[in-house]
């Protein structure tokens, strides 16, 4: 069963890539343009640390670890799951969900597999570059490497769970307008060590809009920073699972609602 899903996804992906890879000269140019568009925060951090040696107890390299992780997780999410933001408009309002409900595979899977946003890969690459640069100055063990990979997967899942919940709101409040982007802006907070922010912000970014679980808390563990609340680094997978369960429940409730009313 799972094998079948992998096969289908791979098919979607290869067909998609075939379409996109046909223009090579433009490809490189657009690639550089993309990077230029997304490099602002990195520049800010670099210029800032040119003026001050330390920010709330975090050095430039340590901040770059947080930044790199945040970008990689969000970038990966945006690359593979961005079709979710069309849930309200294309699938619910325009009724595209109907043809997915008639197929013998999960409609959620169909929605996600349909589109790959290769634009966002530049974000992943910038994050990776920042991360590698920063970690070159830190002692890395094999455990920590595994931890990083694990945190990245965990981070993407958190983004997925959270935004699935947000987009499911369209089942109850149909509108073409998606509030997803407001929350995307909130994720910018998680590119910095959130310990520098006020308590309410810290709380929201940890428990309600849990983006800091993808970047800050893993960084706390990797860098061995013994600040308060660092125990959260150890329980991030639990919180992720809670959010995933919540997303699962809400998605199914939403589908039920769609089945009782249609579009």
């Amino acid at each position: 069963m799972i094998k079948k899903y992998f096969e289908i996804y791979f098919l979607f992906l290869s067909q998609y890539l075939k379409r996109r890879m046909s223009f090579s000269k433009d490809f490189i140019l657009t690639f550089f343009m993309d990077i230029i568009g997304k490099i602002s925060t990195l520049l800010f951090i670099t210029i800032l640390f040119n003026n001050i040696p330390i920010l709330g107890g975090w050095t430039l390299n340590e901040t770059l670890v947080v930044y790199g992780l945040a970008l990689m997780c969000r970038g990966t999410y945006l690359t593979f799951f961005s079709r979710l933001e069309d849930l309200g408009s294309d699938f619910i309002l325009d009724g595209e969900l109907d043809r997915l409900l008639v197929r013998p595979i999960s409609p959620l899977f169909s929605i996600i597999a349909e589109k790959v946003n290769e634009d966002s890969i530049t974000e992943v690459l910038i994050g990776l570059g920042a991360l590698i640069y920063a970690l070159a100055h830190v002692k890395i063990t094999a455990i920590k490497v595994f931890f990083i990979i694990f945190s990245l997967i965990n981070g993407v899942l958190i983004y997925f769970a959270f935004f699935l919940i947000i987009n499911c709101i369209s089942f109850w409040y149909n509108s073409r307008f998606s509030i997803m982007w407001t929350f995307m802006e909130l994720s910018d907070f998680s590119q910095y060590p959130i310990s520098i922010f006020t308590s309410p912000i810290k709380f929201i970014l940890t428990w309600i809009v849990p983006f800091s679980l993808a970047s800050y808390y893993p960084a706390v563990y990797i860098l061995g920073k013994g600040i308060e609340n660092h125990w959260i680094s150890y329980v991030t997978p639990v919180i992720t699972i809670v959010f995933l369960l919540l997303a699962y429940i809400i998605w199914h409730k939403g589908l039920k609602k769609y089945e009782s009313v249609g579009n």
Partner: protein
Amino acid sequence: MIEVKNLTKSYNVYDRREGLRGSIKDLFNPRYKTIEALKDVSFNVNAGEILGYIGTNGAGKSTTIKLLSGILTPTSGEVKINGLVPSKERRRNAYNISVVFGQRTQLSWDLAVHESYELIKNIYDVPQDKFNEKLSWINKMIDFNPLMHSPVRKLSLGQRTLCDIVASFIHSPKVIFLDEPTIGLDIFVKEQVHTLMKKANQEFGTTFVITTHDMNDIEKLCNRIILINKGELIFNGSKNDINELYGSECMVSFESEDIFLHNYVQSVIPNNVKWKIDSHKLELNFNPNEVNIKSLIEKVIGSFNSITDINVEKTSLEYLIKKIYEIKK
């Protein structure tokens, strides 16, 4: 194959108020009204039948298709397809059915047609040899190969619909639902669609349920007809049943160089024939079971010297269906 018992579907919709004050009231105290899309509908469809599901816009056709395919759950009543309840066993039922939505395509917009078919083949676990068999069978009937490599967005509406219908055959479903499939198609493509469906019905015994209000579709394809009006089922039977139950009428009109005179016509035309004069034109309406067309025409030609034109029309299905609607009101 398909069992529908007391199927009812009603839902609550926002009842929006007018004007500015209304919009504000809506924010704080929204009103709902109940729409009854289907009321207590029951019918059966046997394997291999081609059912025409007819109704005006808003009568409940699309709702029925959605209920039968499992997209909607019924408010009350039962639906079973091949023993499975569609809304409860959606995955298993999906292998048995296919749905073609008239205006929306299930093919991927940017991909070539054959790539979409590859996807479908994968999704429904169709073995490669059966897949190739199916496509070559289809190609025998309608010359299909030139379309295969074209991206879907470059196809015309007719070509796209054709590709959609072919797509619905790939996994050899037992039942295919089509929701207004021939809207906007030209006669040539319509013919290809009809050929495909008839042949599939004959060779594979595929059951078809077609919602439409295109009389051409019904006359050419369907052996059974169900009429729906305002969510209620008002007729369920074969085309012959309609003829027998609601009578048929024949219309013959004559044109003459002279003006038809009222009294003379009355003396010539028998009692069980209705007639109407419009100066040079005479129109007769009668039941062909009661009156012999040949002798009637011969009589008229014999009685009126200067007949220049004769027009014979057997009543159309359309006319009969309109009659049923009126009777049932």
